[in-house]
């Protein structure tokens, strides 16, 4: 799981001895996080209620898009392959916007990591949010750390049975609400909610709600920190992304060591001998939701939630020593303070500037792509079999399959022209000819329409092996136009 520095190993042991006796597996040590109060706990609650609020309320937010259009603000409509987010409507061929969003999310994660380490893990990750919520339930029913340890060890009794059942029932209810809210993003939420309650909802909705219920219950109720330690790839990636200037939850060894009791420290200080502020009370360890001892330094299990800071501050207040023996700090600053130099903080440094620039660039590219996005689209596919036809009359004809897309919420009429080929004539059994030689087709609201089109040269013309031609579709009402270049093929003539 973790690696040790080269210097911290003791005397060699014969390999056979280890492999014969070493266990293949071990039971996870159960963590009983203790309740704490303080700045970081308040922040964690705020993020938790905000995140859960968004998750549960968002599906019910309405957004009027006109008749025959869904009025749910955020909706992933799998049946009609559309994604709606307020004023934005995305089609399947536009999923690259999600690529942009994912890149943006990754860069923001990198930036937050460069500034404050794994705060994502400590505050905003769904695993952290739901684990915190489940812990709150557990604490409310079974009591705080000490009671829970005793409760776990106690023999079965009616009281224990009732409390256990109550805890798991409450967990399951939260898990079901989690899974239930998830499926609301995929259908009209109020409708689905009624269907769900009256057992009229599609099977797939129950299936996904069930899966999410199961994962929430097991991951937030039972797996907890094991997810962070063994399942999540982010701690490993984070280890490669961090640098000495990132503010991590740090035990300030310069202040804390050597550890001793309050009385002994007072005596030492009176003598003028060095005395650390750490009284070895283990409050930081007991508060930790992943069960690490932060005094051992930066480590894989630490999710930078800062609950140990709150726990330690409470103790420091009691023993009347300065706060923040544990704080968001760097190892460099510990060394500096030991040398009597002031602490320095490099929040603005090349790495963070680079991340910010990358975020701004990605954001600008996405914004540009979004602003220049059109409400209509034309795609052209050349018919390959046959590549061209010499007609009975002696002309050359090429077939094309055109697809018009109309992203507006009302039907649009498109006019089609072709240019680049002398004397070219368009015919289609689907699109109707206008008096000026253009073709026209009506495309339904929020739909695409496939139109086979033939382009022919007059009899006797020899168009050559390949000629680039341009199809231009114009929305008659809005004037929006889309041009596509393709080729017109003909027989290879002797001059070529």
């Amino acid at each position, binding site marked *: *799981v*973790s*690696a*040790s*520095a*080269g210097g*911290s*190993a*003791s*005397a*060699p*042991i*014969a*390999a056979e*001895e*280890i492999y014969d006796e*070493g*266990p*293949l*597996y*071990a*039971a*996870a040590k159960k963590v009983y996080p203790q309740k704490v109060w303080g700045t970081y706990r308040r922040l964690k609650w705020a993020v938790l209620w905000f995140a859960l609020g968004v998750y549960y309320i968002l599906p019910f937010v309405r957004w009027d898009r006109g008749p025959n259009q869904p009025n749910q603000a955020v909706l992933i409509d799998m049946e009609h392959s559309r994604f709606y987010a307020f004023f934005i409507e995305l089609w399947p061929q536009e999923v690259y916007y999600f690529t942009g969003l994912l890149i943006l999310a990754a860069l923001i994660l990198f930036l937050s990591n460069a500034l404050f380490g794994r705060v994502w893990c400590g505050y905003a990750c769904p695993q952290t949010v739901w684990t915190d919520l489940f812990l709150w339930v557990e604490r409310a029913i079974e009591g705080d750390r000490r009671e829970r340890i005793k409760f776990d060890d106690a023999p079965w009794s009616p009281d224990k049975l009732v409390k256990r059942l109550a805890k798991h029932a409450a967990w399951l209810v939260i898990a079901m609400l989690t899974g239930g809210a998830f499926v609301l993003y995929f259908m009209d939420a109020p409708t689905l909610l009624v269907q769900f309650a009256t057992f009229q909802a599609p099977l797939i909705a129950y299936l996904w709600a069930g899966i999410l219920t199961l994962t929430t219950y097991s991951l937030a109720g039972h*797996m907890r920190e*094991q997810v962070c330690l*063994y399942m999540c790839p982010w701690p490993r990636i984070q280890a490669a992304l961090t640098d000495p200037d990132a503010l991590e939850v740090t035990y300030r060894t310069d202040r804390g060591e050597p550890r001793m009791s309050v009385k002994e420290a007072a005596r030492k200080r009176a003598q003028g001998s060095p005395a650390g502020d750490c009284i070895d009370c283990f409050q930081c360890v007991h508060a930790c939701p992943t069960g690490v001892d932060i005094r*051992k330094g930066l480590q894989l299990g630490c999710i930078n939630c800062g609950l140990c800071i709150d726990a330690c501050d409470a103790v420091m207040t009691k023993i009347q020593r300065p706060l923040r023996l544990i704080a968001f700090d760097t190892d460099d600053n510990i060394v500096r303070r030991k040398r009597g130099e002031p602490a320095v903080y490099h929040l603005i440094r090349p790495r963070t500037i680079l991340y910010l620039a990358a975020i701004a660039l990605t954001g600008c590219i996405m914004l540009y792509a979004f602003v220049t996005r059109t409400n209509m689209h034309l795609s052209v596919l050349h*018919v*390959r*079999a*046959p590549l061209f*036809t*010499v*007609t*009975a*009359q*002696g002309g050359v*004809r090429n*077939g094309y399959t055109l697809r018009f897309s109309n992203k507006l919420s009302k039907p649009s009429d498109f006019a089609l022209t072709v240019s680049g080929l002398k004397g070219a004539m368009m*015919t*289609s*059994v*689907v699109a109707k000819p206008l008096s000026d030689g253009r073709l026209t087709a*009506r495309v339904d609201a929020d739909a695409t*329409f*496939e139109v*086979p089109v*033939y382009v*022919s040269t007059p009899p006797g013309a020899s168009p050559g092996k390949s000629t680039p031609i341009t199809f231009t579709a114009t929305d008659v009402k809005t004037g929006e136009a889309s041009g596509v270049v393709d080729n017109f093929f003909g027989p290879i003539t002797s001059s070529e």
Partner: protein
Amino acid sequence: MTIDPVQVDKVSGQTTTGHEWDGIRELNTPLPRWWLWLFYLTIAFSVVYWFLFPAWPLFGSYTGGVLGWSSRAAVADQVALAKAARMQEATALESASLSEIAAAPKLQELALAQGKAAFGDNCAPCHGSGGQGQKGYPNLTAGRWLWGGALEQIGTTIIHGIRAPDDADTRTSAMPAFGKDGTLKPEEIREVADYVRTLAGLEPEHGVDIAAGKKIFADNCVACHGEDGKGNIEMGSANLTTKVWQYGSDINDLIYTITNARNSTMPAWGHRLDPVTIKSLAIYVHSLGGGT
């Protein structure tokens, strides 16, 4: 990596594996026990799966599973679902005439899509994937139709076929085998073949008597192919004046055609396909010719 003696790590109290990378030693941390349970769970899952679903091969068969699931049945279910979803349009297609379908964009769209699929399944082996045809099999994209290119004419051809032995109403006509029957002598056939080439604007062979060919044509061919050689869709006689030749415009191809006659056949699809599919095929094939 270098091999390093196994040691006990001071911080974690864990033994190392003896592997070392640039001074970093790997801890021999045991697997979490729940991980092992998950492993057992996957084994249990597979046993349940064998019981429920097709799994083990046997001699000449396989274990079917108690759920009776099969991918073939799953496809059949999905096809039935798709058919049910299109019921309304399919019913409309059934009652509409070909010209009505061509005038209604929604019906036309569906007919074109269905026709394209049916064409690939049934017609492409002879007529080519895009209706481009091949030697002996008509090109459907060139606007030259032996039995007529109007919607109804195409529909009739598909339903009854051409010279189909199992259909009383099949389109039929027979070009005589002028050479094999002894009606024309080989040099006469050569002369008329050269004349036919000139009808389409092709160069005749050097030194052949075109006037003689023209006379032979007038005596033997005009009854079916017409004075001007433009053919007659009533009897499926070919238009000889176009750029499109079903059996080739080469002089030897023409001589073979006149000597032996071709009289090729097409199955009567009315016995094989349902009416809606045939209508869809007619709409699609009509569109291949550009609708003319």
